[in-house]
C-alpha cells in the first residue's frame, strides 16, 4: 500500500489546535494529497485535552492515527506532548511548545505537573524540537494569540512543502 503520513496536533481546548489543523489540511489538499482528519468536539472544548489526527497520502481509509505510527506530533502544551507520546513512532519527530497549562487536578493540589516533561521527551524522542511560541508570536507578530501559526511554522519546516502554499492557505483561513 502506498505510504500514508500520520500527524497529530495536540493541546488544550481553546488553544487554537482546530484552526491550525484546518490550515495544515488545506495545505495538504493543495499539494494534491488525499487527506483525512478526525477530532472530537463537545466537552473537550471546556479546557480539556484535545487531539486532531491528520493523515495524508495517495489514498487514506481510516481517519484515526494508530498508536506508535505518528510521523509527526505537534504539541501545543508540554503535558499534552507527554500524554500523546505513545502515538509517536520510534523514528518520529515531535515539535513541542514550551508552555505549561495546569489542569484542574493540579490547580486543586490533587495531582502534580510533570515540570520535567522536556527532559523526559528528550530521552524518548529521536527528533525533539522545542519552540517558545508565545515569545516568538509576541516578538514577530506582537500578538500572543498567533502562537498556533508560529507552531505550524515549526511543523512546516519539517514537511518539505513549499512556503508559498502555506502562505496562501493561511491567508485564506485566518482572519486578519
Amino acid at each position, binding site marked *: *500500500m502506498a505510504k500514508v503520513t500520520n500527524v497529530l496536533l495536540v493541546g*488544550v*481546548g481553546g488553544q487554537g489546535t482546530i484552526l491550525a489543523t484546518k490550515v495544515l*489540511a*488545506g495545505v495538504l*489538499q493543495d499539494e494534491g494529497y*488525499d*487527506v*483525512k*482528519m*478526525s*477530532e*472530537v*468536539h*463537545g*466537552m*473537550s*472544548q*471546556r*479546557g*480539556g*485535552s484535545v487531539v486532531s489526527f491528520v493523515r495524508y497520502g495517495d489514498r*487514506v*481509509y*481510516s*481517519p*484515526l492515527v*494508530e*498508536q*506508535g*505510527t505518528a510521523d509527526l506530533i505537534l504539541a501545543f502544551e508540554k*503535558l*499534552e506532548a*507527554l*500524554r500523546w*507520546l*505513545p*502515538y*509517536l*513512532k*520510534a523514528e518520529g519527530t515531535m515539535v513541542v511548545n514550551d508552555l505549561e497549562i*495546569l*489542569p*484542574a*487536578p*493540579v*490547580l*486543586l*493540589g*490533587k*495531582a*502534580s*505537573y*510533570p515540570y*520535567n*516533561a522536556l527532559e*523526559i521527551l528528550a530521552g*524518548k524522542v529521536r527528533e525533539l524540537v522545542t519552540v517558545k511560541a508565545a515569545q516568538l508570536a509576541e516578538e514577530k507578530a506582537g500578538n500572543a494569540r498567533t502562537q498556533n501559526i508560529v507552531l505550524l511554522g515549526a511543523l512546516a519546516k519539517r514537511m518539505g512543502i513549499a512556503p508559498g502554499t502555506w502562505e496562501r492557505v493561511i491567508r485564506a483561513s485566518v482572519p486578519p
Partner: protein
Amino acid sequence: MKKFLSGDEAIARGAFEYGATFAAAYPGTPSTEIIENILPYKEIYAEWSPNEKVALEVAIGASLAGARSLVAMKHVGVNVAADPLFTAAYTGVNGGLVIVSADEPSLHSSQNEQDNRNFAPFAKIPMLEPSDSQEAKDLVGEAFRISEEYDTPVLLRITTRIAHAKGLVECYERQEVEVKEYKKNAAKYCMVPANARKRRVFVEERTRLLSEFSETFLYNRIEWGDKSIGIITSGISYQYAREVFGAKASYLKLTMTWPLPEKLMREFAEGVEKLYVVEELDPFLENQVKAMGIPVIGKELLPNMFEFTPELLRQKFFGVDPASNPVTEVEIPPRPPVLCAGCPHRPVFYILKKHRVPVMGDIGCYGLGLQPPLEAVDTTVCMGASVGMTHGFQKASAWNGVPRKVVGVIGDSTFFHGGMTGVADMVFNNGSGVIVVLDNRTTAMTGHQPHPGTGITGKGEVTDEIKIEDVVRALGVRDVQIVDSYDLQAVDQAVRHALDFDGPSVVICRRACALLKGLPDLGKAVINQEQCTRCHACLRTGCPALVSHPDKSVTIDTNACNGCFVCGQVCPVGAIEKVGGGERG
C-alpha cells in the same frame, strides 16, 4: 470542485445540492454542525427548534407542504422524537424527509451510548449509513430519492467519527427540486385506527419493496480481495477494516443497512471461507446474518461497546499490540473539562453546595458542577429530568415521613427543551420543589445556539424573546425570584427564601455565558499578595484562572480571568481587588 468537509458539513452540503428547502434541529453533539452549516444557505429555510420532537414535527409538516426536508439530532434526540417518528413511518411523506441520527459510541459528550440503527427496524423505515464525508453528502440525495419514491421517512445514521472526521468531497451545483403540491388525504395523513390499520399493511409492503431495492442499490457492494476472510461491515468500521486488512480480505460494504440485501449477503457469504461482521455497538448486522442461518463471527471477537479503532481490530484479529512509545517515569494527570473562568454557573453551585440539599442536575455545561471542588450536583439523567426528579424526590420524601427540600438546576435552553411540562406537574400536584434556572442566555454546551429565550433566531432574525419568568408564572408558580448569578449574596438569599417557601418555587439566576461575544469588559481580579493569608478559600470556587503555587501562594492568570469577581466575594480578608473594567454590567 473538491472541498475538505466533515461528515456534518457534507450533509449540510448535500441538503443544499439535492434541493432541500427546509431543515430543523435541536443542537446536540455530534450533530450540531449540520444545521449550523445549513443556516447560511439562503435557499433553505432552517431553524433551531426547542427540542427534537418539535424539530421532527416541524419537518413532517414541511414535507407535507411539499418541501424536501431534513431534520438532525444526536442519538438521544431520537428518543425524544420517537413518538412522531413511529407514526410518520405510517403517513409517509410528500416532499422527501430525511432524519439524521448522529450516534456517539464512546460517549465523548453524551450521557449514554445507544445504537440507533435499532430504530430503523423498530420504526420500520429504511436506513443509510455513510462511511466517509463523500458518502455523507451523496447519501442525502439518495435518501431524498428513496423517501419520495417509496413514500417513507429515511434514517441517515452517522457516528462521531463520520460527523467530525473530514475528508475531500466532490461538490456540485444545487439542483432545484420542485416543491410538491399538497393534496388533502385523510386516509394517508390522519392516523386514526381505521386508517392506520391500512397504512400498517402498506408499511409491510413498502419494507418488502425496499428489500428488493437494497439488493441492487449501488452503495451496497462487494469488494473482492483474498477470499479466505470475508468481512461484512458498514459506516466507519468499513474504513477501519480496509485499513487493517487491505487486499487480504473481501468486503461486503453495506450502506443501506435496513432493510438488508439478503441475496447479496448470501452470495458474499458463499464466496468466502470465513465470515466476520465488523460493526460497532450492537450485533445489529450480525443478528440478521445469523437469522439467515449463515455462520458468522462477530461479538464473540469484537466488543459491543465503545468505538472501534484500527488498533483494536489488529489486537482482536491478530493479537498484536500497538508499537507504542509509552511514558513510564511520571504519572500524567488527566485534564478534564471544567467550568470556564467567569462561568455564571459557578457561583450558583458554590451557594447550593453550602445549603446541603439534594440537587437534581440536568444536562448542559452545568453538568460540570458535579466535579470537585463544587460537587454540587447529585444527578444527571436526560434533558429536563431535573424538574420531574425534584418533584418526585420531594413528594416521595414527604409521603414517606421524611419531608425535605429538594433543588433542581436546569439551563435556559434545557428549560425550553424539556423543563416546562415538569414545572406544570409540580404546580398541578401541589409540589414544593425549588427550581433554579441557570439562565446564561444561550445554549452554551453545544456552542452558543440561540433558543426561544434569546430573542434571535438561528437565521439571525430578531424575534420575541420568551421570558422564563413569564412562563413559570403563567404555569402557576407564585414564588419567582430573579437574581444576578455573579452576586453571591443575592443568590444565597434567594435560595434560602425558596427553601423556606411552602410551595413550588423558581429562582432564575441570570448572567450571560462569559464566552459570548460583545459582553462588557468587567476588568480582572488581582490578588494582593501582602494581604493574602493563603487560606485557599478562593480555590474552593474551582475557577481555572486561579493558580496555586508550590509555596501555597495563589495568583490569578489575567489572560484567563473574565472578571466575574466571585473569588473576591469569597475571600475572607478582602485581598482580591478588581482592576479595570466598568461597573458590573
